Each structure stands twice: as structure tokens, then as C-alpha cells.
């Protein structure tokens, strides 16, 4: 069956607008989750307990102020966003399975939000894959950031909550990075529509 017409492509600026909308939602969800977790697990409790080591993505060199960020090329910004997003596929599974047995009064709502996080992450990942296909080979490169934290967040109630909270705080920060990089990309692509930014 031969389809006659060539298929018009979704413009890159549209794709970046849609990607930014999803990354915005992704980060907002992680903020809501953090607040929900903190509401019954006051930070004080966490101050006493030893704070787990660094986030598994901390080895990835990312800009840490505006000047640095605006000097990063488009393909590198997209590559950073994709690398971070992919680095969370496995840990989100761990968060999801742990959420089902999380000793926390808002366990059910937390579980639902984690699932929504997974759906948004997957959907955004599909979009960034398509975007990188349109932005040249440099945008295809990705850094490998393996998660070595294992599937089990701890046996006793407190350490399970602390490790869950720590992993979520890492995701929250990384989702903010992804959101920031995509929004900078979006405004660069929107040069022809100045009212967009």
C-alpha cells in the first residue's frame, strides 16, 4: 500500500514547546511529591540521620549558572537533558516499587504520582529521541549514568523513608535541570516568534 503524500514534519520549535510543557509538568510533579513526603516526615528527622552519598547523576558536568548555561550549544543542551532523563528510567522503577510499601500516610497518593512521573518521563523521552534525530549527530550522544543503588531502599522504616526522600530529591533537581535546558532551547528555537519568550 503506497502512501502518496510525503508526511509533513512537526517543526522543531513546536517539538521544543511541547517538550518544555512536559518537563515543566515533570518537575512540578516532583515538587508536589516532595511536599507530600515532607508533610509527614519532617526534615528534622532527616537532619539527624546520615544523608546518603551523592546523586547517581552528579558525575555529569552541567552548567550551574546562567552564563554557563547560555554558552552551551543546542546539541549539548539536548544531550544533557536526554542523558539525565535516561539515567532515571531504572531508579523510577525502584521508587515505583518502593512506593507501594512506603510506610507513609500519603502512600497511595505518592504511588499514583510516581506512576504519573514514569508516564511523563517516558513520553518526554520519546519526544527528545525524535528531537535529537532532527538536531544532528552531536545531539545523539548521551552520557551513561548507571544507577547502582539496587532495588531495595532499606529494611527498616526510617532508612526506607530517608532513601526514598533522597532519591526523590535527586530526581527533583535533575528534572529541574532538564526543564531549564529545554526552556533555553525552546527560546533559541523561537527566534521567529519573539512573543513566545
Amino acid at each position, binding site marked *: *500500500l503506497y*502512501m*502518496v*503524500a510525503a*508526511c*509533513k*514534519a*512537526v517543526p522543531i520549535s*513546536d*517539538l521544543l514547546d*511541547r517538550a*518544555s*510543557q512536559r518537563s*515543566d*509538568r515533570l518537575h*512540578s510533579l516532583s515538587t508536589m511529591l516532595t511536599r507530600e513526603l515532607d508533610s509527614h516526615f519532617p526534615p528534622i528527622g532527616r537532619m539527624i540521620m546520615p544523608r546518603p552519598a551523592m546523586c547517581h547523576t552528579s558525575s555529569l558536568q552541567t552548567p550551574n549558572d546562567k552564563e554557563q548555561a547560555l554558552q552551551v550549544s543546542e546539541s549539548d543542551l539536548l544531550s544533557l537533558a536526554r542523558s539525565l532523563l535516561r539515567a532515571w528510567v531504572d531508579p523510577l522503577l525502584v521508587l515505583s516499587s518502593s512506593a507501594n510499601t512506603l510506610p507513609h500516610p500519603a502512600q497511595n497518593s505518592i504511588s499514583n504520582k510516581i506512576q504519573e512521573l514514569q508516564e511523563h518521563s517516558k513520553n518526554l523521552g*520519546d*519526544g527528545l529521541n*525524535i*528531537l535529537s*534525530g532532527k538536531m544532528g549527530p552531536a545531539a545523539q550522544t548521551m552520557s551513561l549514568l548507571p544507577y547502582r543503588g539496587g532495588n531495595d531502599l532499606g529494611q527498616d522504616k526510617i532508612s526506607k523513608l530517608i532513601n526514598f526522600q533522597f532519591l526523590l530529591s535527586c530526581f527533583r533537581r535533575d528534572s529541574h535541570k532538564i526543564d531549564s535546558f529545554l526552556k533555553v532551547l525552546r527560546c533559541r528555537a523561537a527566534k521567529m516568534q519573539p512573543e513566545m519568550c
Partner: protein
Amino acid sequence: TRYSLPGKPALTRCRSPEKETFTCWWEPGSDGGLPTTYALYYRKENSETVYECPDYHTAGKNSCFFNKNDTSIWVNYNITVVASNALGSTFSDPVDIDVVYIVKPNPPEKVAVTVMEDKGWPFLRVSWEPPHKADTRSGWITLIYELRVKLEGENEWEMHLAGQQKMFNIFSLRSGGRYLVQVRCKPDHGFWSEWSSASHIKVPDYFHRE
């Protein structure tokens, strides 16, 4: 009787309520006097793979429904309908679909109408909420609204564009009049929703016939 190839079908409309699913409808052509079957095929941007409609039933006759897994906002769909009978097949013109630009939202919700007063003159205060699926709070989706008002028993509606507002005041009312009010909404790149169900309100008799 003379038999012929089926007439050319036409893809008439594709709509998505919330960019997560979408549906397409087609208009059959003439059937050429022979039993005719219809199939919808689509191809995604940058891919040569041709898929058939995943679900001909959910949205009723001459339709194809794409569920969450079949729907992507990241690529265009190139869609064609094929009519076939014993003598052969006839293709519709292919149509390019971008799910983000075919949104027809659900109608506004919680439409409320109250009679208010301004220096002795009554006016109607109408307020509503966006359809719950549309996340307008984050600032990414912009919906505009339109109202229509008419006196019960009359035919002609009075239309009002309300822009992005979620409330509207209607002045110049008929003393003792019974009014019907409906609201609809539209995303900036998309289609008007259906009208909300009618809200009824009675304006008190205020006109003291001197």
C-alpha cells in the same frame, strides 16, 4: 445493473479531546453497487511503516479511534481511507494530522449564573471552570471562551466573546425575563467545544411601570 469501483471516500474530521487520544471520521463515497468495505491506514512522519487503524469500533461507524499508546504528539500522522469492493479499491486523499492542532476540548464545567445589581439595574454574572482535563493553571494551555444568552422561547442567541476570562457580566436584561445561558471553549490552536448544558435564570421584575 452496472457495477463499478467504489467512489472516493473522504477523511472528514479528526479530533482529540486532550492530546492523549484522537479519533478520525470518514465519509464513504458511492458503493459502486457492490458490497464495499472501508479501512484506514496511517504512516508516521519519517517512517515508511504503514499501520492499519487500531480500533474501528470505540467511536462508532466510519471512524477510527487511537488510544493513548497509539497517540503521539511528537510526530505527524499521514492518514488515508481505502474503499474496496470486488472490482478493486479507491483511496481517499491522504491527510496530515498533528494531534496538538486538532484539539476539541470538552465543554466548560460548573457553569453558574446569578442575578446581581448595579445601581438598581440587574445584570447576570456568569462564571465557569475550564474542562478538568485542561491544565490551564500551569500557563501552557490557553483556552478562550464564548457565551450565548437568549430569552426562553426566542430563537436568536446573543453571542459574547469572553477571551480568557472565566466570568462574564451580561447587562441590558428584560425585566422579569427567563434566560438560557451556555458557554463553550477553544484552545488557541484548535476547535470550539460543544456548548455546556443550558443554565436557566429568571430576572426579577425591576421595571416599575410608572
